[in-house]
């Protein structure tokens, strides 16, 4: 099963390797930005559309 920690966009927290940020580049009609959502390292990512294998 693919999990978040297997993804290129996952960055583990220094203080807690089991958790981290899912970082994504987003371009909307007006601007571009990087977005971060907190995730568990072991979270199931098999259905994630932005999953990119590390």
């Amino acid at each position, binding site marked *: 099963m693919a999990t978040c920690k297997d993804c290129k966009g996952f960055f583990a927290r220094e203080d807690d390797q089991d958790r981290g940020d899912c*970082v994504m580049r987003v371009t909307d009609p*007006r*601007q*571009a*930005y*990087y*977005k*971060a*959502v*907190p995730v568990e390292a072991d979270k199931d990512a098999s259905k994630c559309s932005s999953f990119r294998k590390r």
Partner: protein
Amino acid sequence: MGQSTARTEKESSVEELKNRREWWFVAEKTRSKRLDYLRKGVWKKGAIGGNYAPGIKIDLTFPQLFIDKWQEHEGEAIMLQKAHALAHVLDNIPIFITDNSQIMGYIGSAPHNIVWHWQGISMVNEEIYNEEGIIPEPEEESLEILANLNDYWGGRTAVDKLARVLDPEDAVKFMSGAIGWGTPTSAATYSTKDFDYIFKGFEAILAEVEERMEETEEKLQGNPSPEILPLYDKLPRWEAMQIVLEAGIRYAERYARLARTLAEHFESDPERREELLRIAETCERVPAKPPRNLQESLQFDHFVQVLSRYETFEGAWPHRPDYIHGPYYDKDVNQDKRLSKEEALDLVGEHLIRTHEVGIFAPKWAREGLQGITGTWVWTMGGVKPDGSDACNDMTVAYMQAARLVRVSNPTFGFRWHPKVKDEVMRECFECIRHGLGYPSMRNDPVLVANTVHWYGHPVEEARTWVHQACMSPCPTTKYGCQPMRMASATANCAKMIEYALHDGYDPVVNMQMGPKTGDPREFKDFEDLFGAWVKQMEWLRNILVRTVNLGRVKDPEFFGRPFLSAIYERAVETGTDACDPSNGDRGNAWVTGFTWVENADSLAAIKKFVYDEKKYTMDEVLDALNANWVGYEEMRLDFVKNAPKWGNDDDYVDDLMVRCLREVSRHSKENRCPSNNTWPLLPENVSGNIHYANLVGALPNGRRLGDALYDGGISPGPGLDKKGPTAVLKSCGKFDHVTDGRAFLLNQRLSPTQLSGEKGYQLWKAYMKTWADLGLDHVQFNMVDDATLRAAQKDPEKYQEVIVRVAGYSAHFVDISRKTQDNIIQRTVQGLG
């Protein structure tokens, strides 16, 4: 060839744009690339014509995260329960860093999202189903989430709870919509903030809380006595403060982490990489610790604003950013030379943009009242320091310059004018006005400081720290001066005072007995009888509003709960109370916002003159005409409009009545008391209540019919009824005392760009402002009639009836004059020759 020629071309075209007064394009050509990117990146959050722009979506992540934790902590003290829920939101809501940006923080999980505050009134929550386009995809799923949220919150919101304790008769009349509007709860509110305290840093406040808790626990272990009993309730409040302060620090750290990740793994441009590392460093520092430089102070400020807007719907933005950030600007730019002026301007411009982009969902009827903006965010500039010396600094100038570059409609500025303001700062104010921004509004600082002392007894040094609590009302930003919630929810539809006086307290529009029975006007033997009835109706109307709002204020800690605001309120931290609890030393700064005020003076003057002085009409005839909504009495109506004295013409007959009405209200303002046992002065202004109430105020002796827009502005004369020009308006407005006759008085004036062009325009304005100050007025804001407006007036004359063109030796209602002349005036206006 090459660069130097290109520069000349660019400059000359900017010159040309200036001559054509195309300020938007001037700004676009002169601002930095960064500001240009950020400005154009803003998703417009204000509604136009009542509708949100395409692409704007409600943020559903926020309420969902909130309710998950909220329900987990059901049964705990309300402040604690809310603190847990808020902390969960701050830990988990998606965050983002936009390209080129340097100031972090947004309320919602993406730039096109607006937050929906659902904890205020369940009746209003239902409004969300009527919105098209703002429900996120997939719609069906979102609607289900919304339905679940509404199911849960129905009956649990702050106003739902308040409604259960109100006097039923008051509730019916208050809710009739005829006499007032607003929500007496801090669920829809605004608060002043004391940044002297906040900038100590959250860690310092946490230490203070810790100390208080230890001290209290010790007391609880000691001798039992009645004094220690209230302490039990304080502990969970302090705990709540701890939770949100810590969550606030973690929220900032999330940005720091993201910025570092981007710098290390994503960013290839070395300059931007450095910026990202600076952002990381900044967010690691604040709000935990005091700011050390301009970027940190702006960032700290913005985090605080964002955090408080996660907690509640803040419809205004009381702030004095030049005063707060000025020292950091001075240190960075002037002393350490760490920042160039241009770099500082980028930060200041972005501060305006970050504020402008905040969006909060409001129901359609409220949006119609605030066309195009999210709230009335009036920032305070200039003024004096507590010792009375000039507080204007380089940051004041930077904000004015940045405003002209980013040209946002919100926030706007209110400038605290005083006699020691330097000419260079006045010129900056003037440039903003000349560029058609419509701000700053000009406020008379000595008058308003005295006013604040007069009404609430704030010590003068504290009164001098004032900021606009909302659009107009000054409020100190000190420990005991700060106001945690919107006491101006006492908003009176003042035209009802004269309407009820003429109908024995009966409301002919909503068809019910509202005010007291003050007698059939046909039986009045003289004007004094009528005036007496007016006074009684005025008192009744104010009483019911003040009663309701007082109750809302006292009950707010029980019904809503403000852990974050309490954590940044020194007096709440010190006492372990909710910031909204009036018992914690609040001095009170309540006022009744007076919508549709001027109709009273004009109506009373018309009756006094025609019925009692000249006996041209009987009261019978007047009442018949009013009851017929003037239909069939048009000639008489025109007589009442044109030949009765009208406010704003420097005519003592009606101006004296205005003064008399205000003095009656002022007397009553001191009889009404707020929960801190302080006064309730009147503040005439309209926002857009003049339109809102058009179909709720019946025919009046000033010549209006049911359906007509009421006068705009708090003390502005009726549109087109100021026949003697702007100086006469100022003269009229100077006849009452702006210190003791009310809280503040909104005056709109139009000036023509023709008159204000060039150096002579500035000299004219300066002399005008000096007279404005000499006359003791507390407020004025200028509206420039630009050529776009005049063009539009040509196209749709019926929409621009009130536009007056005033040029050398000639003035007229624009729509009265011939097409050719109109064209010529527009041409002149554009070319700028007086």
